């Protein structure tokens, strides 16, 4: 049973990590707590669902369509909502509030178009029956989740650490004005990061939709809350921290529900967040906060 619970925790934590890495990337670079990400979860899942069910493309292609489509939506939303605020050098609170308004508006629109009912990907796409490895029961979807998250995380790290664009992104995160003086096209970096982060989050939405068979306009909401906890535990803007904290949060939730009581599951997750803020206010791997000022 412990092995199965550890595996459950790993799958859940992987999805949290993927979502939170996108979330934290935007914060690190754009300095925006972007609540639209809750909407991108649902947008990714719905775009793929429409692609699979109504257009009839294979699942992998639908996944790519959903991810890239959401990336484009994100670029459009950010240009419309956030770029003007950035130009005006508005305080961080303004951008937080404008994304709050944005997510409420977009979720309501989605409700109008798709309705509140829960949909699912066609039953026949992936096998529902689990494969047994000794005591472990592993579903095809869960394997897919672990592989995709592992590949994406590795690719993201290589991209940020090794490529010129990755270095540009880090430079902008460090100091946008200095990066601009060094010849980095800051606007292009902002657009690229919006796209990249939304793509990761849309993929998290698609994987959740596949694993738990629940696609609906508000599916991103619980993830949004978890995302906050993960990003704070891992340190705002810290991608490595988001990975570790995402896995840790999955672990905390599953172990609490499995061995303590499911009543405390959410409480434990957010207690970890509060404890982090008390003990290590800049996150697990936090560097000094003053650096950002």
């Amino acid at each position, binding site marked *: *049973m412990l092995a*199965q*619970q550890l595996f459950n*925790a790993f799958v859940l934590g992987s999805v949290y990590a993927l979502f939170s890495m996108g979330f934290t990337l935007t914060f690190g670079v754009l300095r925006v707590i972007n609540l639209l990400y809750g909407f991108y979860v649902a947008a990714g899942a719905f775009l793929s669902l429409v692609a699979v069910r109504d257009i009839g493309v294979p699942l992998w292609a639908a996944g790519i369509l959903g991810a890239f489509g959401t990336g484009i939506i994100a670029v459009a939303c950010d240009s419309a909502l956030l770029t003007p605020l950035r130009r005006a050098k508005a305080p961080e609170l303004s951008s937080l509030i404008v994304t709050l308004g944005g997510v409420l508006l977009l979720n309501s629109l989605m409700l109008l178009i798709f309705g509140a009912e829960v949909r699912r990907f066609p039953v026949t796409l992936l096998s*529902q029956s*689990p494969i047994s490895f000794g005591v472990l029961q592993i579903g095809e979807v869960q394997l897919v989740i672990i592989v995709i998250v592992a590949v994406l995380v590795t690719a993201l790290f290589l991209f940020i650490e090794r490529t010129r664009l990755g270095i540009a992104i880090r430079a902008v995160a460090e100091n946008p004005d200095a990066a601009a003086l060094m010849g980095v096209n800051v606007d292009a970096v902002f657009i690229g990061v919006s796209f990249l982060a939304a793509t990761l989050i849309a993929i998290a939405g698609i994987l959740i939709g596949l*694993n738990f068979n629940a696609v609906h306009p*508000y599916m991103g909401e619980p993830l949004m809350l978890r995302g906050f906890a993960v990003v704070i535990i891992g340190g705002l803007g810290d991608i490595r921290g988001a990975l570790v904290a995402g896995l840790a949060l999955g672990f905390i939730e*599953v172990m609490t529900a499995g061995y303590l009581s499911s009543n405390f599951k959410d409480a434990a997750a957010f207690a970890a967040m509060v404890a982090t803020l008390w003990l290590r206010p800049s996150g697990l791997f936090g560097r000094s906060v003053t650096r950002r000022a």
Partner: protein
Amino acid sequence: MKPAIYLALAITLAFGQPAFSQETVKVGAIEGLSGPIAKYGVPIRHGIELAADEANRKGGVLGGRKIEMIFEDSAGQKDQALNAMKKLLARDRVIAVLGPTLSNEMFAAGPAAVERQIPAIGTSTTADGITDIGEWIFRTAMPEADVIPVTVATVKKRYGIKRVALMYSNDDAFTKSGFDVIKAAVQKQGLEIATIETFSTKDTDFSAQLTKIKGLNVDAIGISALAEAGAGVVLQARQLGIAPNVVMFGGNGFNSPKVAEIAGKAAEGFMVGTPWFIGKKDPLNQQFVAAYKQKFNDEPDQFAAQAYDSLLILAEAIERAGTTENTRLREALLKTDHKGVLGPFRFTPHRDPASTEGVLVLAVKNGKFDTLD
């Protein structure tokens, strides 16, 4: 201005009281016929109309007097329900009222009927305390608390279960009260509760709770949840390898085609109780379903069936009372012994449904709820 108002009033009065008014028996109905509530109110209206037509075709009541239905739209609003009730009582002088549709509306409008001493029959109001409003409030709708014990008893009898795990979403009043009823019913049947697990309505991952349940080797899992989250629980239970011989059953929240649609094969064998089922093979029910489909070109639902039975119960009571006088009608209603599409029906002295004989337990078979063999 003034003469115009008097003229309007005169016209209203003239047309509002047709020449045959002495001969019909007026019955009011307050239903949510517009807005989102219409998905309940309209089938209820249809059920009532069908029953009134049938009663009138068979010669009406009290030696040939026709039942005349007067429908008022409450749109699901408490104040509109109360206004409708006042209008039906004071202007139309109905002898009884069916509805309103929602429990909240009944709490608002019921006291007016009590004050006027006119029977009001809730056909779809299942909240606690409806009949506590007063001596003149009846209800034919069966509360969930009456249905779940039948489900639990049926599961126990059919599969000989001894040890159960219970799961419910703890952030919703409806599913929490459903859980309380399941727990009480399970204890009453002398079953052992291995664990009680909770989740939130918005959760999608239940693997930790279900893995724990799997390790406890239970015979059955009882779940109180809304259809969507509940279907997710059912699906993941089977994915985690909880064996098919572990029976799963649920409260009224599962009474939706969504369960089999979302959970697919995992939903096979899932059991739920209901006061009424369209596929019930009883001839009376089949006849009702056929007549309803023919008249309204739509399938009846539970609310239509309850409304249909309710009007026939009222018509029988009028006949038994031999008069439309209020106290005799109330006495006659209390003596109801009706065979309806929901099964045998009697009132308790407190004017609630007395019998759960009509409750059906359904199980998912080939992707659809169906009666047990």
